[in-house]
C-alpha cells in the first residue's frame, strides 16, 4: 500500500500555528529565510511547494527565490523523504572504516534503495558529505539533527529494528550519539579549559588600542585556510564606515576530514565565544553571528545554553563586565548542508537567507559584508587563539611556531593510525612527527588540509605544517600502503561534484566532468587520453573559477596523478583510446531481437 508521504499541512491548525510561531519569532525577516526553511522542515520532514509558497508570501519574497534557496541546500528537501532520514557520512575515512557496506546492510534490512524513500514513507537512506566525525566513524546523521558514531554491523542491525518499531530517533540509545573529544596532543589552546571572562578582562585592561597592539605583535593568521593576518582584518573592518559592524564566527567546518572546530565548540565553547567578544571589541561590533554547519546541529542546544550562561555572567549583552558602551551579543545561524558556505562571502549570502553563492570580490567583507556592512569573518580556531593573545601577549604567541606562522595549530588526524583525534602542535611541526605521535605505520600518503589541500607522499614527510611550507586548514588524513590513492581521489571528486554551488561554468561543469572521468577510469574503461583530459580540466579550473573552492577542487587529483600515477595507469584498459561505452554490450538488444548468441554476433569473444 502506498501511503501519502507526510509534510507540513497548512490546513492543520496545529502545524499552521507552529509555522506561524517560527515566522513571528524570526520577525518575518526575509534574511532569515534559510533558518525559517530549516525550522519549518523540522516540523515535518520536507517542504512542499505549498509550504514554500506560504513562506514566500509571508516573508515578502518570490516563490522562485524561495525555491532557489530551498533547492540549493542539501539538507532541505523539496520532494518527499522518509520520516527517518539517514545520511551516511561519505568522507574517504568513513569509507575506509566500511561505511559503504554498512549502508548497503541498512538498505537491505530496511528494504529501501539508496536515495529513494521507502514506499511507506518510513525511511530514506543516502550519503552526505563529511559529518566531521572521522576520528570516530563511520558516522551518520539522523533527521539532520542527531548523529550516530562508531557504526558497526550490530549497531546498524539494531537501528533498523528501532526504525521498524517506530521508535523516535531521540529515544535511541544515548551512547550511539556519544562524541569523544579524542585529544591526542594538547598545547596552548587545549591545555586547559578557558576561564570565562578572563580574556575579556585582560583585553579591557589593555584597552582596544593596547589589545590590537598585542594582536599585531602576535602576527596571528587566520586558521580557515587563507592565512590572512587577523589584526589586519580587524583593523580594516574597524576603520570601514558603516551603520553597524558585524563579527562572524565561521563554524562551517565543511572540509572533509576536518573536525578540530567540532572539538573546540564542544570541549571549550567559552573560548570560542570569548574570542568572538574580543573580535567585537576590536572592530566595534554589537552583533555577532556564529554560522554553525548543519552537520553540527546537535551542538546547537549546548551552545545556546552557554550563551545564556554568559549573558547571566555579564560576558554578553549590555555593558559587558560593567564596561559602559561595550555591548555585544551573539546569534547562532545553523547551516543547511553546503560546503561552499565555508567561503566567507558565500557564508554571508547564506546568513542573509540566500543561495550560498560566492560574491564578486572586491569589495571584501571587511568593508562590505553582512547586510552590506563591515564584517569580520573569523575561523573558530583563530578566535580561540585571540583569547590567548589577550591573556599572555602578542610577543609570547609570536615566540611559538615560526616567524611567518606563529603560535600553535590544530590537526584533525584520521585514517590509518592507532590514535585518531585532534592534535595541537606549534606551527612548523613536521608531518613525520605527527605521524609518529598518532601511531601511523607504513604510511603511503597524507592529505593535509582536506581534499582542497595537499597530498603528500612518503618522501615529503619531512615537510612542515605552516604558511611557508604546507599550509593546512586542519585536516590530516593518513593513508597506509594498503590504500589505493586513486580511490581517495575518486572519493574527493565525488565530493566536489556534489558540493559545487553551480554558479560558474568551470566548476559546475568541470567537477561533473572530473567525476565522470574518474568513474570511467574506475570502471576500467579509461585511456591515457582520459587522464590527460582530467589534467587539462584541473588547469582550467585553477585559472578560471569564480572562487577558491573551484580553484582547489582538483588539487587531490593533480597531486595523485603526479605522485601516484601507477594507481591511475593500472586502471587504463589501453594507453591510447577506449570509448566510454562497451561496444559489445550495446549489441545485446540486437542479439536478443534476432535470437542470436553465436560468436559472430559478438565483437569480442564472450568471457
Amino acid at each position: 500500500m502506498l501511503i501519502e508521504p507526510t509534510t507540513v499541512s497548512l490546513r492543520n491548525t496545529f502545524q499552521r500555528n507552529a509555522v506561524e510561531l517560527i515566522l513571528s519569532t524570526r520577525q518575518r525577516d526575509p534574511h532569515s529565510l534559510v533558518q525559517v526553511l530549516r525550522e519549518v522542515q523540522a516540523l515535518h520532514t520536507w517542504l512542499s511547494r505549498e509550504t514554500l509558497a506560504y513562506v514566500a508570501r509571508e516573508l515578502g519574497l518570490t516563490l522562485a527565490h524561495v525555491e532557489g534557496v530551498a533547492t540549493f541546500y542539501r539538507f532541505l528537501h523539496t520532494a518527499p523523504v522518509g520520516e527517518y532520514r539517514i545520511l551516511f557520512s561519505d568522507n574517504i575515512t568513513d569509507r575506509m572504516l566500511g561505511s559503504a557496506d554498512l549502508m548497503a546492510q541498512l538498505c537491505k534490512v530496511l528494504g529501501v534503495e539508496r536515495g529513494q524513500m521507502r514506499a511507506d514513507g518510513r525511511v530514506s537512506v543516502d550519503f552526505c558529505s563529511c559529518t566531521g566525525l572521522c576520528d570516530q566513524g563511520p558516522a551518520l546523521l539522523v533527521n539532520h539533527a542527531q548523529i550516530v558514531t562508531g557504526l558497526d554491523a550490530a549497531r546498524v542491525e539494531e537501528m533498523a529494528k528501532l526504525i521498524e518499531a517506530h521508535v523516535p530517533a531521540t529515544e535511541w540509545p544515548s551512547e550511539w550519539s556519544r562524541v569523544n573529544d579524542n585529544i591526542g596532543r594538547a598545547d596552548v589552546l587545549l591545555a586547559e579549559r578557558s576561564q570565562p571572562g578572563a580574556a575579556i578582562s585582560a583585553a579591557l585592561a589593555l584597552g582596544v588600542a593596547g589589545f590590537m597592539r598585542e594582536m599585531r605583535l602576535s602576527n596571528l593568521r587566520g586558521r580557515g585556510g587563507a592565512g590572512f593576518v587577523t589584526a589586519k582584518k580587524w583593523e580594516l573592518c574597524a576603520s570601514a564606515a558603516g551603520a553597524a559592524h558585524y563579527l562572524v564566527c565561521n563554524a562551517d567546518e565543511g572540509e572533509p576530514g576536518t573536525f578540530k572546530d567540532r572539538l573546540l565548540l564542544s570541549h571549550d565553547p567559552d573560548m570560542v565565544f570569548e574570542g568572538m567578544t574580543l573580535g567585537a571589541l576590536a572592530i566595534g561590533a554589537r552583533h555577532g553571528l556564529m554560522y554553525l554547519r548543519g552537520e553540527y546541529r546537535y551542538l546547537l542546544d549546548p551552545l545556546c545554553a552557554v550563551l545564556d550562561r554568559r549573558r547571566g555572567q555579564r560576558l554578553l549583552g549590555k555593558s559587558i563586565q560593567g564596561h559602559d558602551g561595550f555591548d555585544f551579543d551573539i546569534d547562532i545561524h545553523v547551516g543547511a548542508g553546503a560546503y561552499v558556505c565555508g567561503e566567507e562571502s558565500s557564508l554571508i549570502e547564506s546568513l542573509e537567507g540566500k543561495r550560498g553563492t560566492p560574491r564578486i570580490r572586491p569589495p571584501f567583507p571587511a568593508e562590505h559584508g553582512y547586510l552590506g556592512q563591515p564584517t569580520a569573518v573569523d575561523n573558530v580556531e583563530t578566535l580561540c587563539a585571540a583569547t590567548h593573545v589577550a591573556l599572555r601577549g602578542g610577543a609570547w604567541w609570536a615566540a611559538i611556531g615560526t616567524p611567518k606562522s606563529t603560535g600553535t595549530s590544530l590537526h584533525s588526524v584520521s585514517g590509518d593510525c592507532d590514535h585518531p583525534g585532534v592534535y595541537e602542535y606549534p606551527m612548523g611541526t613536521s608531518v613525520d612527527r605527527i605521524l609518529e605521535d598518532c601511531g601511523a605505520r607504513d604510511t603511503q600518503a597524507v592529505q593535509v588540509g582536506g581534499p582542497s589541500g595537499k597530498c603528500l607522499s612518503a618522501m615529503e614527510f619531512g615537510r612542515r605544517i605552516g604558511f611557508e611550507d604546507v599550509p593546512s586548514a586542519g585536516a590530516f588524513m593518513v593513508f597506509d600502503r594498503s590504500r589505493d590513492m586513486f580511490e581517495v581521489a575518486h572519493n574527493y571528486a565525488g565530493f566536489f561534484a556534489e558540493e559545487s554551488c553551480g554558479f560558474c561554468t568551470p566548476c559546475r561543469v568541470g567537477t561533473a566532468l572530473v567525476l565522470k572521468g574518474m568513474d570511467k577510469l574506475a570502471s576500467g574503461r579509461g585511456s591515457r587520453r582520459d587522464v590527460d583530459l582530467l589534467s587539462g580540466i584541473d588547469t582550467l579550473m585553477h585559472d578560471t573559477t569564480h572562487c577558491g573552492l573551484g580553484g582547489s577542487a582538483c588539487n587531490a587529483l593533480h597531486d595523485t596523478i603526479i605522485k601516484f600515477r601507477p594507481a591511475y595507469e593500472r586502471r587504463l584498459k589501453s594507453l591510447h583510446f577506449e570509448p566510454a561505452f562497451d561496444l559489445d554490450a550495446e549489441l545485446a538488444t540486437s542479439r536478443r531481437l534476432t535470437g542470436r548468441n553465436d560468436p559472430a554476433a559478438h565483437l569480442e569473444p564472450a568471457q
Partner: protein
Amino acid sequence: MSTPDPVAPTAPAFSLDGIDVPFTAGETILEASRRAGRYIPHLCWHPDFHPQGSCRVCTVKVKGRTGAACTLQAAPGAVVESNTDELNGQRKTLLQMLFVEGNHFCPSCEKSGNCLLQATAYEMGMQDVLFEEFYPRRPIDASHPDILLDFNRCILCELCVRASDVVDGKNIFAIAGHGIGTHLVVNSESGKLGDTDMALADRAASICPVGVILPKRRGFVIPIGERRYDPHSAADTATQEAS
C-alpha cells in the same frame, strides 16, 4: 564597429594585448575595452546590466594572474592579456563545457545564427565538444501564449533573471538547484511561464543570448544567412549581444 566615445587624452589607460585602452574611474576591464571597440569574448556580461562573472569566458591575465574581465576593475598601467593562444584555448574549453552540459543542436535550433554561444564558439575556433555530452532531461515550457521556454539551451548567464528584476520589475526568473543540477526556474505556483505576467515587450523576453526564451510564431522570420552573426561575428562590438 561603433566609434569609441571620446576620452580625455589625459585619461588613465591600461594595455590590452599591447594596445592602450583608456578608461574612467570605476570601469571594469571589459567595459573600457568594449567602449574602445575592443573584443573580449563573453556570454553572461551585457553592457546594460551589472556584471555577474559566472560564464568565465572573459577570463584575462593581469600580471600573470587570471580573473574575469567583467569584474576586474581597470587600473592605470595594468598589462592585460586577452587574445592569446592560452586564454583562447581555455575559452574554447569553457564553451565546450557549456555545449556538453545542455542540449545544443545548432542545426535544428531556430536561434542558430542569432546565438551568442554559437557565434563565440565560431570565434574561438571550436570544432568539436571534446567531452562526452550530459544529455540532461529538460522539458520545454510552452504554456505561455507568446513565449516559448526551451531550457535545453540554458547556459545560466542569468541575463533574464537580471532583466526581469532590474528592468521589468517582475522577477519572473530565478536560479535553483546546485552543482550540475543548477537550473532556471519560473516564478509561479505552477512553475509555468503561462501563469506569470510575462509579456513579449519585456526586456527579459529579448535578452536571452541563446535559444531559451523565444517569441512564438517568429521562428524563421529572418532567414538563415541574414541573421545577426551571418554578416557579423561575435567580435563586432556593435552586434555582440542580443539586444
